[in-house]
Each structure stands twice: as C-alpha cells, then as structure tokens.
C-alpha cells in the first residue's frame, strides 16, 4: 500500500507529520493519528464517487449548477454560511458574495467571535505554538475540552521531549485527561465548573494585582489554590494561557476571555506572558482572514448594496436566519461535515463534504473536495500566523469548492 | 466741602466713590448643621480684606436656608474677588481646599448662575487631585461633581464655579465728631448693608479705619495712610476734614455689579446718617483718585435723585 505524507486539516493544529495509507478510496492514518483525523478519514474513506443531488435525487454537476443558478437568481437576500473552506475556496466565496450581495458568516461565528470581540475591544498579547513549546515555563489551561478539540496539543506543544514546566488546569478535568498531561510536570488543578469561570478569572486578576480581595471558596476552588495560582503566574518567566473558545460555551463568555486577556497584559508588565487561544478548526481563522484582508473588515459581513459592512449583531448567520430576513441559503462546507441549520421553506443549496447525508432534501447538494484529502488547499493554523499547504492525498473525488463556485460565478455572468 | 445735599441734616459731599473692575465668584458652602457651614465660610473668607496684602478680597454674602441650597442643607454664600481670573482661580482653589474641604460634613457648590457666568473656574476640577486617584466624578442634573474621599465620608464639590466681572472699591467715608459717633454710625451702616445681595464688605466688621491714598514717600509702598482724612494730622497736612471732625471710618464694598454696590451705598449712607448731626455724624464723603484709577464712579448725589 502506498504511504503518503499528509497534513491534517481537521483541527487548528494542522499537524503536518501524518503518514496515511491510501488504498483506493480508503484512508488509514499510520503515523500521527488522533481521534479527529481517524474519524474524518474513516468517514471520507468509506465514500465512493459521491454525486450531486437535486431535491435528493442524483444529478450531474452540470444540472446541479444550473439548479443552483436558478436558486441564486431568484434570491434577493442570500446568505452564505458554513465556510469551513480553504483559502482558494474562501476567495471564491467572497467573489460570489460580492456578485450576489450576500451576507456571509462562518458556521462557528459565535464561537470565533468570543476571541475576536476581545481583540476588537481590548487587544491582546499572544504567542504561537513553537514559542509556547520552546519557551513556556508555565502554562495555564482554561476549559475542559481543549484536549478533545485539539487532540495532539499535549504531544506536540505542551510536552514534547519532556519539557519541564508548571501546568495549571482551570476547569474540572476528567481523570483520563489528567493522565494525558506530562507525568513529571508540576500540576496545580483548579477544578472549577464552567459556571464559575467568570468569577475565577476576575479573582485571578485581582490577586495578581494584589487587590484587597478576600477569596472565599470560589466555584469549588479553595482560596489557597487561587493564591498559589496567582503566585505561580507572577513567578513565571514566560507564561502562556491556553483556551479554546469553543469550550467557553455560555452567554457573554467573551467577557471572561477579556478577563483572561487582561490578566495576560497585567502579567506582561513585569514578566513575559502571552495568550494562546486555540482556534483554527473548521477553517474559522482561514475564512475570517481572507474576508478581513480582501474587504478590510472581519466576519460576519454583508455585501448587500454593492458595499461591505461588518456587524456581528446584524449579520451573524444565526440572527439573520432567526429574523427571517434571508430568502436563500448557500451552505459551503468542505471540512467539518456539518449540515446547514434547518430553515423550513427557504431555498437551500448545500456544498458539503463527500460523506454528508442530509436529513432533509436541499434544493441542491453538491459534494466538494476536502482540502488535504481530495484537493490541495491552504489553511491558516490555530495560532493565526502560519498558513500551511495541505497536499492532495488521493486521486479522483469531488471538485474543490473554488472549482464549483468559479463555475457557478461564470454561469451567473 | 462742596455739598450735594443733606440726609437727616448731615451734609453729603458732592463727590464720588471710584471703583475698579475685579473678577469675582460666589461659592455656596453647605453642611449638616449651620454651625459647620459657618465655620467653613468664616475660615474661607478670613484674611481677605484687600488685594494689596491678601491677594483677594472675600466675605460672607449671606446665610442660606436649607430650601435655598442645592442639597437641602443649611448653607452660607461667600463672594471672593481678585484682580484677574488667574488670581481668582488660585485663591479659590486655596481657600476651598484649605477651609471647606477640611471642614466636617461640608459641600461646595457654584453660586454663580450659568446665565451670568463670564467664564468658568476649576473648583472640584482642581480639588479632586486630593483624592489621589480615588476621587469619583459624577454628573448630577446636568452638573458635574467630584466626590473626594475624606475621613468623615466624601467631600462633594461642584466641578466648576462661575466667574463674573465684579467691581471692587465701592466706598464711603463717615466723618464724625468723635470715635464713638463714628463707630456707631458705621455699625448702623454695616447692619443695613448686610441685607443687600451680591455685595460683601471685606474689612473687619465691614469697616476700615486705615483709609489709604495712592503712593508713599517710601518707594516700596504703593499706598499709604490717607493723611488728608487723619484727624491727628490736622494742621500738619492739607486736611480735607471739615471743622469739628474728630474721627473718620470708611466702608468698602465689593459687588458683583454696579447696581448692587450703589444700592449698598444708598442704604449704608442713610443708616449712617440716621439720627443726624445729633448722633455726631458731621458729614459723608467718598474716596476717589480723580477718576484716573477706576471706570466705575458712584456719585453721592445719586442719593438725591
């Protein structure tokens, strides 16, 4: 069986050290595997020759494109959602959005916005994977899902070749996760539930700044542990605070992210400290970066009325659909396998990963290549600086997002 | 003496009081009790008889009832006068800072209505720094206040105080047969004049005995004793005193406007003359410098208009 070097696009770590066995359509990770890549490759490897569908019935790409053009021509207020696509795909999405005056937003917009919001209304001091890997002597891990969302984070960044550092975990972790932490690391565990996170993060700010707070037992964390944590933070030479915004899943969690960003800024006044928000999964950073450089404003955005506007309140996909303003949905997804949100009665064109089977029949469904599997593509890594090329892994397969959208654009004229 | 007329038989000289422009402000000081408001007001207006030696002139204008103050507590209105906006700013800041901020329970409010304020002085805006960063700014009913933490709670102080173009140096002189008569007449005048709004009488008890003239034989001094009105120099100098004058006292008036000064002079002179020559008052005159020094001339003959 041929072994191929691969770069995995199924989380923001973009591990580029995978070896994958390709057997016809079937794919198996031989080296550098994790739960996410295995699941995705197994699912994609089981699909043979996916075909476009019109109202659930198989159709040619040509017919599917024609049907799509019909939907888009009839639409006056289209929304383009999903957007877990590579750079080329996003370039085409935006060309289309400009052409049809669409509102665009990423499927994970509300998650991404937890971090973006703090950037826009506070700023930030951040670092990248290799900096954290080589320099951090203290890492504060916030949240309880980062290890599931970024399965190789510990192996590749936190503890390669037994680096000595202090680790603080802020969240109740299950025992299995705890076991994945480096064995010889000095670990301080603050087992706060998510609901206690806002208060704990504010309290850590107060303690680090030596304000006269009286920390009582807070969200299950003892005052001694909080105090110890503050001491560790202040004693670090190069401290890093890590979180995945997807974990911080409660209303207004961005305020807690701001408390974390503030903690970093305060600590950075005397020692070196930086944040490392784990992101980049489902190409959320990629979509936002391309939108931002091409238009000058981030997602969510509207291309209505031949101009571009940014407004997370007005243009968030969820809000636009909830308000019933849109009259057609174009869902463009090539990585996550996510289906579009159900919008009864609205015309819906869906570009999806090859293995996705929709519960309800969309007007049109067109399978597209997943970057790094059936097409080469570029994605922005989770630390926001590095863009990697994901080489194509196997021949055949559906067309790339950009190919489909460019054909569509040509037909729209 | 060129007489313009008589009041209760007392001759009034046909002359004028010469006054000059000053910068003035009104501060309303309140406290939990009238006594503490008074303490602050007395302190804040102390040692402020003449700009020459004190830098500013200040006095209590009147006491205010709880209904008349912005915070519904007893209060005192004081006026402060200085020669320039800059001077006034400096003295307002010092006096409010040392005498009001320090005094238990007090608060300080601007007493100059917006409509007549010519410019604005920093009051709380200047005192806030005493709060060392703990001060709080608060906009209440369209006005900005500063809350400065102090040991009995908070000193509340309006951010700005209005400045008006006031007038200093309104005056008249009571010529009397002897000291007792002069003092009696002056005290009657002061008691009457205290009821007039917009004015203060900056000298002790409202009265000054050391009337002055411009210049001195000593180079260092810009003013010196008014020898023409000193009874002990009669016969030595060119005296201005009519025969039978044994003592002279002056009342100096600073006011926010000319009408208030004129009114104060009117009620003051009439009160001084009360009882006529029988009460020992020989005449009333006023101090001027021949009209060269100040643009405001208060003619005594206006008393008969």
């Amino acid at each position: 069986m041929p072994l191929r070097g691969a770069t995995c696009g199924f989380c923001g770590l973009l591990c580029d050290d995978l070896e994958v066995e390709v057997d016809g359509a079937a794919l198996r990770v031989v080296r550098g595997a994790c739960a996410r890549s295995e699941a995705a490759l197994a699912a994609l490897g089981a699909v043979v020759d996916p075909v476009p569908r019109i109202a659930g019935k198989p159709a040619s790409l040509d017919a599917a494109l024609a049907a799509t053009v019909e939907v888009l021509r009839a639409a006056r207020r289209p929304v383009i959602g999903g957007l877990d696509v590579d750079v080329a795909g996003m370039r085409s999405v935006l060309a289309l959005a400009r052409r049809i005056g669409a509102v665009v937003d990423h499927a994970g917009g509300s998650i991404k916005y937890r971090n973006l919001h703090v950037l826009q209304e506070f700023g930030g001091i951040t670092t990248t994977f290799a900096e954290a890997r080589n320099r951090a002597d203290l890492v504060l891990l916030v949240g309880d899902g980062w290890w599931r969302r970024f399965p190789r984070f510990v192996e590749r960044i936190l503890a390669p070749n037994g680096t000595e550092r202090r680790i603080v975990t802020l969240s109740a972790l299950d025992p299995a996760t705890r076991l994945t932490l480096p064995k010889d690391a000095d670990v301080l565990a603050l087992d706060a539930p998510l609901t206690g996170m806002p208060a704990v993060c504010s309290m850590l700010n107060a303690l680090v700044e030596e304000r006269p707070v009286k920390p009582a037992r807070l969200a299950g964390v003892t005052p001694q542990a909080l105090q110890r944590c503050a001491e560790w933070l202040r004693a670090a030479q190069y401290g890093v605070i890590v979180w995945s915004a997807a974990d911080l899943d409660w209303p207004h969690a961005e305020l807690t992210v701001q408390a974390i960003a503030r903690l970093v800024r305060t600590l950075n006044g005397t020692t070196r400290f930086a944040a490392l928000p784990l992101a980049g999964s489902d190409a959320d950073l990629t979509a936002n970066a391309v939108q931002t450089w091409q238009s000058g404003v981030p997602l969510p955005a509207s291309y209505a009325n031949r101009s571009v506007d940014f407004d997370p309140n007005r243009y968030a996909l969820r809000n636009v659909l909830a308000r019933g303003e849109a009259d057609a949905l174009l869902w463009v997804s090539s990585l996550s396998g996510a289906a579009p949100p159900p919008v009864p009665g609205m015309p819906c064109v869906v570009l999806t990963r090859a293995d996705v089977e929709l519960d309800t029949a969309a007007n049109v469904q067109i399978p597209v290549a997943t970057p790094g599997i059936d097409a080469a593509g570029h994605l922005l890594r989770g630390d926001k600086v590095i863009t990697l090329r994901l080489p194509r892994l196997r021949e055949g397969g559906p067309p790339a997002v950009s190919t489909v959208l460019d054909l569509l654009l040509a037909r729209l004229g | 003496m060129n007489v313009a007329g008589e009041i209760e038989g007392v001759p009034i000289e046909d002359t004028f009081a010469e006054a000059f422009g000053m910068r003035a402000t009104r501060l309303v000081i309140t406290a939990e009790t009238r006594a503490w408001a008074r303490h602050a007001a007395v302190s804040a207006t102390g040692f402020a008889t003449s700009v020459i030696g004190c830098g500013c002139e200040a006095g209590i204008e009147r006491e205010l009832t709880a209904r008349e103050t912005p915070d519904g507590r007893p209060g005192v209105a004081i006026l402060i006068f200085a020669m320039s906006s800059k001077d006034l700013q400096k003295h307002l800041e010092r006096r409010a800072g040392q005498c009001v901020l320090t005094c238990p329970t007090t608060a300080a409010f601007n007493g100059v209505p917006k409509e007549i304020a010519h410019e604005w002085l920093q009051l709380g805006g200047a005192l806030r720094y005493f709060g060392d960063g703990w001060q709080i700014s608060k906009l209440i009913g369209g006005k900005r206040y500063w809350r400065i933490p102090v040991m009995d709670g908070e000193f509340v102080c309006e951010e700005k105080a209005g400045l008006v173009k006031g007038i200093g140096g309104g005056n008249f002189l009571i010529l009397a047969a002897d000291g007792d008569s002069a003092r009696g007449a002056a005290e009657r005048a002061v008691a009457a004049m205290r009821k007039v709004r917009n004015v203060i009488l900056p000298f002790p008890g409202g009265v000054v005995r050391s009337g002055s003239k411009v210049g001195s034989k000593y180079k260092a001094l810009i003013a010196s004793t008014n020898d023409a009105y000193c009874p002990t120099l009669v016969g030595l100098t060119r005296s201005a005193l009519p025969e039978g004058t044994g003592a002279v006292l002056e009342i100096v008036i600073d006011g926010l406007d000319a009408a208030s000064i004129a009114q104060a002079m009117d009620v003051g002179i009439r009160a001084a003359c009360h009882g006529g020559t029988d009460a020992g008052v020989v005449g009333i005159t006023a101090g001027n410098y021949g009209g060269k020094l100040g643009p405001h001339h208060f003619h005594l003959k206006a008393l008969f208009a």
Partner: protein
Amino acid sequence: MSALKFVLRHSPPSAVDVSGLRPAMLAGKSRKEIAQLSLTGWNEVHRVGDLFAVRGDDAQRIVIDGADERLVRIGAGLDSGELTVVGAAGDYLGESMRGGSIVVRGDAGALIGAGMRGGRIDVSGNVGAFAGSGRAGTLQGMAGGVIVVRGNAGDRAADRMRRGLLLIEGNAGDYCASRMLAGTTVVLGRVGIDAGYLMRRGTLVLGRSPHELLPTFNHNGWHDLLAIRLLLESLAVYGKRFQSFARSRPSLSRWLGDLGCDGKGEILIAPGRP
C-alpha cells in the same frame, strides 16, 4: 403646523435603515420631496413614499407610526427635534445621537443609544440587549445623554458606558454594567447574574438586592452619601417611580469593584427583598 408623520404601510422584508428620517435631513423639504427620498434595505431601495404614508409638515416633530423591528437606526445621529415612534423600534435606536429626544411607545431592539452623546431616549416598553452600550469594536459605549426604559432591559445594559444616565424601571438582564467606565445606571427592578463584571468606574444603583454579587466586589458599608442623595433626587424628573425611590431616601449598601479590573466602580443596593 402638525408633526411630520410616517405611517408604515407594510413591514419590509429586511431591515431598513431609517436614520434619514430625522429633522436635519428633512427640514425644508416638501412632502413630495420627502416621499421621493430613498431608504436602504438589503439589496433593495425603498422610496419613503412606498414604505410610508407621509402626513403633516413639521420636520422638527416627527412621528413614525405603526413601526416594527424591521426599522433600524431610528433617530441615529439625531441632534435636535423630537421623534416619536409608535409601535416597535428595531436595533440601534438613537445610535450616536447628540441631542433632541426620541420617545418610543412600545418596545425597542438591541443596542439602543449605542454610542450616544446627548439627548434623551424614552421607551415605554422593553428593550433588547446592550442598551446604552456601543457598536462592536468601539471602546466606549454611551457617552452622554439620558435613556429611560419603563419596561425591562436585556443583558449587558450599560456595557462600556462612559457617561450619561441609563434608567431602567423594570428588570435588567445578565452582566448589567459590564466593563462600565463611568456614568450612572439605575435599575429599580432585578438584575441578572454577574452585575458589574469588569466594571472600572461608574455607579450602578439597584432597587432590589441581587441574589449574589461577584466575589471581586468588596462590601464598603451602609452609606447615606450626599452625592448619591443629590443623584437620586435629580432623578425625580424622570417619573414617579424614581421620585418615590429618591423620597424613600434609603441608606444604601455600597459595594466596590470589580477588583479584577481597577475596582473603582460602585454598586449601591437598596435594602429589602432580593
């Protein structure tokens, strides 16, 4: 002269920016000219006359009748005159207004008074989230003027508030006065969780005790502060409920925080039921 009245003929399919319907934009125009003006929706332009029946002639007094939440940015940028909304107002009511007054007889959407600097907004009903806050990306919320909400407000009321007065007769949602920078917010009803989170300065007066305050607020004691007395008395002009709240002259429980963020804000809580 009678108020210039815009009666909504039909609800537009998408949000329409009606900030153009304000005195400065309409003064000196005939009804016919006004009817010809255009308002922008999503890929659609509406003639004012198509969307509204236009009546009256006094551009200093404008009434939008039969309004619904599709009408956004009502009175945005207003600097003088009166604007009355009968019905529901959409998001961004009175955004960046500098003067004049807006009265809503009904509910209003999110972000009312976002970034406003002066003037007054009165809403008889409820309002959405982020009342008196600012647009995304800006560092300051409301920076002057007065907002009075007779009903309830959503989450994050007074977020980033910099100056001015936000008065809520009913309840406010979660994270009231989050990141507040200065100014005064009064909530006579209840507030949700974590009031004053990351509050730097400013005053939050609560008519009812919240269930729990953040642990980064320290109790400062019970005080009857002159400045607060003056403040509450000054609110009497905003209606009977504020008047009676001030008249009760409560000694207030004072909390200082958020100590996780400078800690110079104050939450003042009236005694009594949570």
